[in-house]
């Protein structure tokens, strides 16, 4: 540190020399010293303005915290369980089997040619990421209330970190998909590469919704209870257990106001093979995802500044 000009006066108890009486700024005798040392980080604390920018440089400075929080969420999740990480495989597989039995077996919903279990599993890749990410990230701020009221860091790290922790589950589920596809379907093909940009797209949707729900649940715990219902309703409004072709043509545009429709169709196109590229659906999903993200970000930064006072 470069300020060794300041000699610390360590007084002995009782014979203390008063160095300078503090008071209103300007009355202090050392005005000559007010220029900051150029090596020191300078920060001004001031009342919030209407747009407190989410600073990317600040987020970068806290990148380690981001990684460590995500790591914490992953490590903690399956602590003291017997099966540990196998739950990540078991959960979607069991759900897919139930869906295949109920909707494919009994209800005989059409699956556009593919084996029903593959049909539903391909859709569950983005959907489970959304459901798990939104549930975790949506409640993340309340869960870390202790941190928010005791330490400063960009609050947005919390929902993003817990959402990122869900990407591990997603990767494992992708592995399961590869195995299932090799066993029951066409096996890997080049279109599988499209999963990467599609995942970015679904991530943007989750980010927006998570920021929205997590921020508002700090103020109104109602959102915490609303969230599971919202996710469930959203599931039935998305082509998870049925095909998009089931929706009558005149409702298709309305139906695709849900970006997950295009995204799920995209995943099916990429993973199942032999289908038409869902151009319209994805064309709608991209701006929708961006809009959701911007709304979520706006709401989040608007209410972020008073989290510590409210939580």
């Amino acid at each position, binding site marked *: 540190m470069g300020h060794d000009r300041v000699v610390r006066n360590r007084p002995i108890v009782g014979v203390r020399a008063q160095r300078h009486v503090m008071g209103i700024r300007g009355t202090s005798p050392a005005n000559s*010293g*007010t220029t900051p040392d150029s090596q020191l980080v300078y920060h001004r*604390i*001031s009342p919030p303005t209407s747009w407190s920018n989410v600073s990317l440089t600040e987020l970068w400075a806290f990148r380690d915290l981001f990684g460590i929080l995500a790591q914490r969420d992953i490590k*903690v999740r399956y602590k003291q369980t017997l099966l540990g990480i196998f739950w990540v495989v078991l959960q979607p597989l069991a759900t897919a089997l139930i869906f295949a039995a109920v909707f494919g077996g009994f209800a005989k919903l059409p699956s556009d040619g593919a084996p029903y279990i593959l049909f539903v599993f391909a859709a569950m890749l983005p959907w489970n990421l959304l459901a798990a990410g939104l549930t975790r990230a949506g409640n993340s701020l309340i869960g870390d209330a*202790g941190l928010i009221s*005791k*330490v400063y860091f960009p609050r947005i790290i919390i929902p993003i970190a817990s959402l990122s922790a869900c990407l591990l589950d997603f990767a494992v589920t992708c592995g399961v998909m590869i195995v299932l596809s090799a066993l029951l379907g066409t096996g890997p093909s080049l279109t599988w590469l499209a999963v990467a940009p599609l995942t970015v797209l679904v991530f943007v949707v989750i980010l927006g919704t998570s920021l929205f729900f997590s921020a508002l649940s700090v103020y*109104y715990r109602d959102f915490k209870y609303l969230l599971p219902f919202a996710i469930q309703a959203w599931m039935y409004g998305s082509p998870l257990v049925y095909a998009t072709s089931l929706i009558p043509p005149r409702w298709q545009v309305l139906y695709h106001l849900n970006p997950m429709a295009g995204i799920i169709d995209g995943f099916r196109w990429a993973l199942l093979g032999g289908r038409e590229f869902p151009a319209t659906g994805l064309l709608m999903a991209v701006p929708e995802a961006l809009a959701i993200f911007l709304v979520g970000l706006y709401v989040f930064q608007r209410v972020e500044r008073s989290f510590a006072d409210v939580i």
Partner: protein
Amino acid sequence: MAQYAIQAHGLSKAYRISPERGPAQYRTLRETLVEASRRPFRRRSERSDIFWALDDVSFDVEQGEAIGFIGRNGAGKSTLLKLLSRITRPTRGTADIYGRMGSLLEVGTGFHPELSGRENVYLNGAILGMSRADIRRRFDEIVAFAEVERFLETPVKRYSSGMYMRLAFAVAAHLQPEILVVDEVLAVGDTAFQAKCIGKMEDVASEGRTVVFVSHNMAAITQLCSKVVLLESGVVAASGSPDQVIARYLGSGNQQGRADLSRRNRPAESGGAAFEWAEMRNADDEICQDFSIGDDVRVAFGLRLAPTKPRTKLVLAIKAADGTPVALISQDDSGFSLGSDRDSWNISVDFEDIRLYPGSYHVTLWATDGTNSEEFDRVEDALVFRIVDGGRLTMRHLPRYAGIIFLTPRWRSRPGELAIQASAGPADKGTAHG
């Protein structure tokens, strides 16, 4: 030439308190909707009371200086720390911060019980603002300071509370910011641990870092800080050398040995009972603040119970000026209990022949429910009294703070031989300063 680490100018923080609910409680959507529909044309700010936790607070802190903030509960100390450490933002005013700031408002923030000691060091370090590389570099030092080498891979939920505290403080102590902001973390832990904490903070201060410290512990403040600011009801009441400001703090509010407590700020009360006033009287039943050793002292106070007249238990604590506990006096020890047929009581507690060394002492009043599980009211430093030199018992000039308890044991001597007896009883111990 001085350089500033912090320049605060007119910092103010307002909180909204809705009359029917406590401050800072979250609301349900329904309540907001109901409220909004009831009074659709009123603005939010008009609807509720504004409470200024801090009001126009200005101060400067030089680089390398250790500054202490003192004040009663509710004076705004914690709010100030929260503003400085950017947890919340001011309503008005600014503060310029020169240097990387690390704040420690709680020991073990973010510790996760399921994670191992090692994992928590990284987690906690990152939360406090250290990078992964920083933590890795200091990891061994942290572990050695905390003395938990053998338990690094054990989840911290299996740690003893002592180990937990040591590890948590070790991480914080190895945070190396240019400005360290510390709240009353030292209030926890045993005496040895507190001494270790203070020692570490002195090291930090002597390395030329700036320390901002908030505490009720006057001994710690005196030891650590070269400058002290006294906050009262959100404004700077005094600032300057520790001795002067601490004296002002201890003497404030009850110059005449009587204090009106009904308007004094304190932590949220549960409402079971509240102290209204307190006073001290001498043997002649005069209100008095100065006593001599051996005097009779009466502490009296007014207590108002809630209409339900809950069972109430009263406790007094006496502390020396530097915060050292002198006595905790419970009604149980004297076999006293309060009747349950009235909701307003005047209570007196008589000390006969008080045997304290010259110095200032402060009295804290507590009212809890019968089982000590709920605190009805607590007034820190409700009264301050002095024991002054002189009086019927003192035969010599007594130095201030040479001790706490004034003992006059019976001394005896008998003729002895020069032979040294190994098995003799303990050597005579009387007043050490005879």
